């Protein structure tokens, strides 16, 4: 078990990277705390797997260093790093039995046979495969094969970290949930450092203590699921996490007032007069219909009732704006007004979130209403 430190790490698949765009993984400094469960979340091709393969040593980074605890392992072999990794598609040794498969990583390290026997049985129990231990791995279903892969990833107790590269992609939905819960329980029990790559936000949010969101080769935010939800640091996080994602409205901001296509909205904090690409972001959960005619006037285009709640799709000056309303809520007719929960408004300049100054000197009418 180890703390993993990434220092000025960057990677490019090109031999001579010049521009920022040449890097699959842009310069990154981060410490993965010992024993924590992380999810690495991001769309396909954002550099998640690249980062994972660099940590496990399957890939050598173009720049920067990796430390396990205080030891520099940048040039160390995968084997020397003592890391377990589970891949997206099941990897089993076809000609071996399930048991031999599970025992393989231990056997290669010359572990005592007695120990292997007990450990393999433990793992088999964990993944629910005690009954098929002596079957050949080849004839099993993709589900079962992936469980073997997971089992092989967890069979060594002394690993520095366990890395998961979208391990549940091929697994049936009900099984997914079960395995995820098991992994989580396992993490609490073994306290290994775990890094779990996924592009599924539910998976990330349920598994991890901390979620690392990546976008376009960069880490855009590291935080607890709650932070990601309430204060997305980047418009991408807002948009990527949540269903539907955060509403983003281009605006002009003057102090504590945002002017969105001619309509003024109070922000509850002072942002001065930011320049650049200014947007305000509000999650659909914090939008509601106002009865008094204040807020943005929108036209409703569609209502989706998904059981727990309703998603109301509306248009404001050509921009899509989603509202989540209680399933019992009465949805107004075509045109209506939408107001935002003041504390849930985030302001973004050039994609990044900016913090506003709470005003003390004078209270505007809007803030008095708070």
């Amino acid at each position, binding site marked *: 078990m180890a703390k993993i430190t990434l220092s000025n790490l960057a990677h490019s698949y090109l031999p001579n990277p010049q521009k920022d765009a040449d890097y699959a993984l842009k310069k990154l400094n981060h410490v993965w705390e010992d024993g924590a469960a992380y999810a690495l979340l991001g769309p396909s091709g954002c550099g998640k797997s690249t980062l994972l393969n660099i940590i496990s040593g399957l890939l050598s980074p173009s720049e920067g260093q990796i430390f396990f605890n205080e030891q520099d392992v940048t040039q160390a072999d*995968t084997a020397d790093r003592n890391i377990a*990794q589970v*891949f997206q598609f099941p*990897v089993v040794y076809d000609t071996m039995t399930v048991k031999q498969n599970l025992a393989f990583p231990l056997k290669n390290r010359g572990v005592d046979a007695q120990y292997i026997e007990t450990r393999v049985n433990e793992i088999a129990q964990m993944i629910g495969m005690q009954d098929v231990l002596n079957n050949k791995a080849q004839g099993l279903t993709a589900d079962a094969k992936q469980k073997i892969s997971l089992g092989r990833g967890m069979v060594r107790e002394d690993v520095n970290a366990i890395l998961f590269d979208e391990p549940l992609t091929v697994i049936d939905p009900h099984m997914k949930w079960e395995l995820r819960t098991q992994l989580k329980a396992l993490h609490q029990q073994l306290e290994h450092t775990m890094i779990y790559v996924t592009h599924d936000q539910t998976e990330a949010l349920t598994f991890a203590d901390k979620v690392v969101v990546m976008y376009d080769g960069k880490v855009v935010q590291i935080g607890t699921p709650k932070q990601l939800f309430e204060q997305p640091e980047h418009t991408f996080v807002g948009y990527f996490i949540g269903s539907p994602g955060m509403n983003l409205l281009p605006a002009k901001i003057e102090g504590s007032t945002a002017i969105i296509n001619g309509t003024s909205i109070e922000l509850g904090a002072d942002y001065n007069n930011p320049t650049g690409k200014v947007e305000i972001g509000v999650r659909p959960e914090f939008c509601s219909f106002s009865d008094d005619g204040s807020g943005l006037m929108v036209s409703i285009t569609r209502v989706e009732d998904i059981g727990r709640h309703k998603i109301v799709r509306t248009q404001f000056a050509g921009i899509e704006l989603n509202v989540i309303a209680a399933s019992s809520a009465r949805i107004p007719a075509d045109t209506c007004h939408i107001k935002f929960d003041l504390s849930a408004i985030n302001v973004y300049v050039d994609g990044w979130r900016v913090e506003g100054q709470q005003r003390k000197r004078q209270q505007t009418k809007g803030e008095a209403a708070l």
Partner: protein
Amino acid sequence: MKTVNQKAWFLVLPVLLLVGFSAVIPLMTVVNYSVQDTFGNNVFYWVGLEWFEEILHSERMHNALGRQVIFTTVIMLIEIPLGIFISLHMPKKGVWASVCLVLIALPLLIPWNVVGTIWQIFGRIDIGLLGHSLNALGIDYNYVQNATAAWITIIIMDVWHWTSLVVLLCYAGLQAIPDAYYQAAKIDQASRWNVFRYIELPKMMGVLLIASLLRFMDSFMIYTEPFVLTGGGPGNVTTFLSIDLVKMAIGQFDLGPAAAFSLIYFLTILLISWVFYTIMTNIDKREGM
């Protein structure tokens, strides 16, 4: 009630006719010769299975068969492992992968009698690069007179000509292995031998089966290359089954025995191929359980 209509069988008719004319009828003429004898003037009379008995008990046939079995065994023992070895060491991607593939495929594109001619000239002691150099070095090499030299030359020639086929098939099999397998093996700290034993070899089993079958059938029927190189000599030491058969059929014009020989030859190849295939697929199936 469902109306059963068998008229669709007429659609198969063209194929039946084609196969009939191209395979069945020619084969039947061979069968015809194998049970008859003639003293000329195109008059044949029935001899039953006499020719078959004669061939099965002929020492000439036994010797040719023995040479054939040794030849096929030796070249397969060399070509299959060598093919696997080369394919494992070929570059997986990039320009060099293409270059290697072209170089490897080259021998397969050369007509068989040209391969024979190349080695015939290459090994000659008067003008051949190989033969002349070896003799200049003091090694007594002469495939025309020395049985060992003739065998070695023929085997090297076959290995040169056909290992490429095994290499290409194995290479294709190796290319189909996803990267994740190698990565997982690294994570699991598998040794190079274990990677070969548990990942590469099992994934290559399918193509190896095809490669072995093709090499067996082809080498068991080999004719052109040794015929051009040694003509079956010195003496009879490189007279393999098909060379012997041609000698008998066209050289001596013994149509009856040659026809019986052909049929036995054909059935032997069919039988061994079938056994081969059954054993290999059974191994495959058992591993699948």
